[in-house]
């Protein structure tokens, strides 16, 4: 990529937005242009990663008293541009038809315009290299995303969700902006690369303060617990194509911010700051999956799953910080690669799942409870198949994409035993246990999700009348499904692409220890040499398909070989079935010979996790109410009303008191607003005096 390439891409995004304003066909072409721009973005970002050739431009003296505006692409920026492009392309193709499903109530043109603009902002955020341009594109992204969440603006609930999102985002901005201002003050420049170059001179206390300001400030956008509450509110409100962006690229911009500041601009911080990131990451992962588990709205379930995956990403990233502080550079590199890989993997899986959720939403009318769906696999086979691939990917089932990144993260945490600090060992060990539990619950969660939505009989008329999504939407899902499979099968080709990232930030390149030339490797795999290793090496050129987490004696895995074995066993099973082919008799489902088996008799999504809900009842704080109305006697039941809703404690215990406090503060502050002009002049005078005093003292 180069600066002109980025300009062309931005131009394409802009043209897409303009074309979208022109009409229904304009919107179609607009989305097509956006898709093309996203593709170009992905390709050019990948080139930067492969060649390591970043660039930097300065636009001088545009703003008086500020200094130059600057754009810069390095490996880290390029990686996030790649994620944006990889998800942006299929989702834009998907949107070509999806946007029209809102017609005639809402215009597909509005959607296209906003979508093109938000994509342009997203492409610019990682490239911004100075505070002003960064804040500009960041705010553009926040506002456009909020506008998109409130796309169905006639629904007050959606508008409210957008408002919550906006308020929380701006709260986050306040935090990380403070951090940036401190760094500006210390380095004397609003340019990010200058701040980075100046990092050795940042005092440890200031570094820690900036560390947490950036972590929590950007963490709002990323959705770390307890700052995640806007996610499950915004996702069901937004159109599904925007949800797909929201849950992947937009959330990842928060991750980008954290990465940029924590490893790109700050000096080495003590190990415990990384341990805090690990702890919050693990907590986020566990909380996310626990709430996803009991949610019955498909989209807010997926949002909680995003929270979970952000947790996994930050756990890996925190481990990288801890290892870096412990001078275990190879492990730090491994942890960073694991978290980067998980960002990519989560982006494609979640994009795919939201595309599926959108198709389902379109097919059954509007957002429905999962307990109202069912039987969609027969009605929408393509959507079901791609959704299944996405679910397998996100549940970390080999050989799909989530498997390798989660496995690497877990392996990294297990290798925390090598850390020389006891506290780090304990933190990483506990986080490993939490992630293992998370992975198990994630499988439960997505078995339940897929089973309830797609299998068995339809539970409502709407589900029974569902039809397959239009081709354009199918193509979008299909592209993402291919990405999930490829990323899952061939991580050994992806890891070397990320080589420059750890090299740049940790100063160590662990890639060769992760993807080793297995056939000719003298260590653990030495036995392969006499067994025709040379031949193998000749047949499969390159590093080999085995992923080893740095130390070969720990463990190793190969998704490609795993897939080969799975395929082989399936083939054997199929052959056996062919050989033993006996006359078959199709009989109805065995129901204990009951007479009327209907969809009412099917297990529901709520029922599936009820036992888990009881197990974790301390966390869910479920509110249980049951009242029974009787007929003549108390023994003849007429009507049963039962509610057992899991209530997220964060809103009630954390945000409501906070909000009440703010309100009280506002009421208190009203006293100063008397409306008397002379009083205001007095305020100004006092302020002026204070500034003079401070300046004099400084």
């Amino acid at each position, binding site marked *: 990529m180069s600066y002109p390439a980025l300009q062309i891409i931005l131009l394409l995004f802009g043209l897409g937005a303009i074309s979208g304003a022109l009409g229904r066909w304009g919107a179609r072409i607009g989305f097509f242009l956006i898709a093309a721009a996203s593709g170009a973005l992905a390709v050019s970002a990948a080139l930067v990663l492969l060649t390591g050739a970043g660039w930097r431009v300065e636009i001088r003296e545009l703003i008086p008293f500020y200094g130059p505006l600057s754009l810069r692409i390095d490996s880290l920026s390029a990686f996030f541009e790649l994620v944006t492009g990889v998800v942006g392309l299929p989702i834009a193709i998907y949107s070509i038809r999806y946007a029209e499903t809102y017609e005639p109530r809402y215009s597909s043109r509005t959607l296209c315009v906003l979508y093109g603009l938000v994509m342009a902002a997203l492409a610019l955020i990682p490239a911004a290299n100075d505070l002003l341009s960064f804040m500009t594109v960041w705010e553009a992204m926040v506002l456009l995303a909020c506008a998109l969440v409130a796309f169905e603006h006639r629904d007050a609930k959606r508008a409210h969700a957008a408002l919550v999102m906006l308020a929380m985002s701006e709260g986050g901005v306040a935090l990380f902006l403070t951090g940036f201002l401190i760094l500006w003050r210390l380095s004397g420049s609003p340019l990010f690369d200058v701040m980075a170059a100046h990092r050795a001179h940042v005092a440890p206390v200031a570094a820690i303060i900036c560390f947490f300001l950036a972590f929590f400030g950007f963490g709002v956008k990323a959705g770390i617990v307890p700052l995640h509450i806007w996610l499950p509110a915004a996702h069901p409100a937004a159109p599904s194509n925007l949800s797909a962006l929201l849950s992947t690229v937009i959330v990842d911009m928060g991750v980008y911010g954290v990465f940029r500041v924590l490893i790109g601009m700050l000096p080495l911080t003590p190990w415990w700051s990384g341990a805090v990131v690990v702890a919050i990451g693990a907590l986020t992962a566990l909380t996310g999956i626990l709430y996803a588990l009991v949610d019955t709205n498909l989209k807010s379930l997926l949002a909680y799953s995003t929270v979970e995956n952000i947790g996994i990403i930050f756990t890996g990233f925190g481990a990288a910080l801890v290892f870096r502080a412990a001078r275990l550079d190879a492990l730090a590199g491994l942890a960073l690669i694991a978290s980067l890989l998980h960002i990519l993997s989560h982006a494609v899986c979640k994009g795919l799942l939201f595309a599926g959720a959108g198709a389902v939403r379109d097919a059954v009318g509007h957002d429905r409870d999962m307990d109202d769906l069912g039987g969609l696999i027969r009605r929408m086979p393509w959507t079901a198949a791609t959704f299944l691939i996405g679910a397998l990917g996100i549940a970390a089932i080999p050989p799909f994409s989530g498997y390798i990144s989660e496995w690497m993260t877990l392996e990294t945490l297990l290798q925390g035993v090598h850390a020389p600090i006891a506290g780090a060992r304990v933190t990483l060990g506990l986080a490993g246990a939490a992630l293992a539990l998370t992975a198990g619950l994630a499988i439960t969660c997505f078995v339940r999700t897929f089973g309830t939505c797609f299998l068995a009989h339809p539970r409502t008329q709407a589900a029974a009348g569902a039809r397959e999504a239009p081709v354009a939407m199918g193509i979008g899902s299909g592209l993402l499904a291919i990405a999930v499979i490829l990323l899952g099968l061939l991580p050994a080709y992806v890891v070397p692409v990320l080589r420059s990232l750890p090299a740049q930030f940790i100063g160590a390149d662990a890639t060769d220890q992760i993807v080793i030339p297995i056939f000719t490797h003298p260590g653990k795999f030495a036995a392969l040499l006499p067994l025709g290793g040379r031949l193998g090496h000749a047949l499969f050129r390159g590093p080999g398909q085995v992923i080893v987490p740095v130390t070969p004696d720990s463990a190793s895995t190969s998704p490609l070989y795993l897939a080969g074995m799975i395929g082989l066993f399936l083939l054997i099973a199929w052959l056996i079935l062919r050989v033993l082919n006996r006359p078959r*008799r199709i*009989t*109805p489902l*065995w129901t204990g*010979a009951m*007479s009327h088996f209907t969809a009412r008799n099917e297990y529901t999504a709520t029922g599936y996790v009820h036992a888990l809900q009881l197990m974790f009842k301390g966390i869910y704080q479920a509110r249980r109410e049951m009242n029974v109305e009787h007929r003549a006697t108390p023994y003849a039941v007429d009507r049963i009303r039962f509610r057992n809703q899991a209530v997220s404690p964060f809103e009630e215990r954390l945000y409501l008191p906070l909000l009440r406090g703010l309100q009280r503060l506002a009421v208190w502050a009203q006293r100063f607003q008397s409306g008397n002009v002379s009083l205001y002049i007095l305020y100004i005078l006092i302020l002026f005096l204070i500034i003079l005093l401070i300046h004099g003292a400084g």
Partner: protein
Amino acid sequence: MMNLVRQGIRTGVVTTRYPAELESAPPGYVGQIELIRERMDPARARECAAICPTGAIEAFEEGRIRLDRGRCIYCGLCVEHSPEMFAASQDFETAVTRREDLIVISGASVKPPPGRSAGRSPFRRSLHIRHIDTGDDGATISEAKLLDSPAFDMNRIGFFFTTSPRHADALLVTGVVARAMERPLQETYEAMPEPRLIIAGGAEAISGAPFDASSAVAGGAGSILPIDIFIPGSPPAPLALLYGLLLAVGRPGQKRPEESERTQ
């Protein structure tokens, strides 16, 4: 927990050795009713036929008797009335593979033990049995349940009760077929993979006696499904059921040299 184990060990082995060794039924056990003479006084024969509560006895003109063991409920009224013709036997190896083998006529030559040819059954060793209650009074169920208890422990010879008909080789039907159970019976049979066996456990399941006259009863299971094994009795004792199951896998009286000399 240790107390439980100790109690278990203290009780020792109570399981029957049947069929590895010959087992004799406890004294007083009535396995089936035998006809011990060719003829009896015709008038008394008619009385016997009238006294039988299930109509299992038919008296011929010349004083010969036809007894349908598929209808006999072992009430013993005929034995009390005419001990010169009827006698209770302790034999429990009473199950047969053909309905007509349950019908005996006084003086007729004793048929070869039915089902001994072994070869009819598609199963050799293990048998997974799905039980269906089509109108049982509870006694046959109680006896069938005892097969799983330590006294008989049918698992040791490869017999298991299974939950789903999908996994079942054999369907054990107990009780008369009540009208409301006709369809469930049919459905359960349909749900079984082939090959499959139907075992009728008890006179109720074989013939519907003594409720076959009731309008709420469709009759015995034989009127609905093709039955492969008939186990008479009301209820059939666990050993009789066990013999029926052995018959179903074609290995009654395994490892028993005296087998061939056995006469009915």
